[in-house]
């Protein structure tokens, strides 16, 4: 788990985009904005990812409690009922080891650091870019290779 990684990540390897597309990775997008859910859903599907969306943190936790699992969770911070930091802490307490990535428009470094410390692997500023997704897919491939 890396702390303080709340900038845009631009360390791309020489792996081509074609190598990254068409994988079987699953993603859960947790955001209370229908617009953001639709945007992320479309963007991620362009990379061949299987996407599910959750409208709020409680729905995300319930999904995991019902046995669902995902390679990657994209987590908004500001949500009703449970905010992104609370959801992240809860998922980590439940033993969820998926990559959890914050996607937030939080300005203050202090707030972003607090969000990271809830258990995020990375944190990006909204909007999520193609470069961010490529970076995450590379990290996921690395993680899968380490685990196998």
């Amino acid at each position, binding site marked *: 788990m890396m702390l303080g990684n709340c900038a845009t990540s631009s360390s791309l390897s020489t792996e081509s985009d074609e190598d990254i597309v068409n994988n079987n990775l699953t993603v859960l997008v947790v955001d209370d904005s229908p617009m953001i859910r*639709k*945007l992320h859903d479309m*963007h991620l599907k362009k990379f061949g990812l299987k996407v599910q969306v959750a409208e709020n943190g409680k729905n995300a936790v319930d999904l995991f409690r019902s046995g669902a699992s995902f390679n990657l969770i994209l987590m908004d911070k*500001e949500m009703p009922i449970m905010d992104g930091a609370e959801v992240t802490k809860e998922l980590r307490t439940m033993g969820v080891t998926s990559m959890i990535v914050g996607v*937030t428009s939080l300005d203050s470094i202090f707030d972003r650091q607090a969000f990271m410390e809830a258990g995020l692997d990375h944190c990006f500023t909204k*909007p999520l870019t193609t470069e961010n997704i490529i970076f995450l897919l590379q990290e996921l491939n690395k993680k899968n290779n380490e685990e196998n």
Partner: protein
Amino acid sequence: MNIVNQLQRQFIDFSTSLHREGFVDDQFTQLQKLQDENSPDFVVEVVSLFFEDCEKLINNMARALEQTQGVDFKQVDASVHQLKGSSSSIGAMRVKNACISFRSFCEAQNREGCLRCLQQVTHEYSLLKNKLQTLFTLEQQILAAGGSIPVVD
């Protein structure tokens, strides 16, 4: 120049002006690039959701600023922050910039300043809505005339 070429030229010029005048930034171009033949209405749908968000959040800000008992600036700021996030996500640059100014007045707990910013945000939202409706109308006209929508980088 036939009708399709004329419409395409109009579309390119209008698109270029939206960027030049700061209504939209590169994020909007990225949004347009996500649209494909399987989701031909993607941009219109996302923009519609954005405008629904705008209306809801602007109403929230207005209600919070009307409170005569004392304005809850944190509540106003929360709505502005949300609008800033959505506007930057679709590339609505002028709306986003209006939100940035708005937040500094919320922080200063300056009601008059906030009211002026609310007016500015509302104005920018209305302008953008009209501009994008014109853009989408041009797209429909090009498609109806049998042409394809030019990609404007």
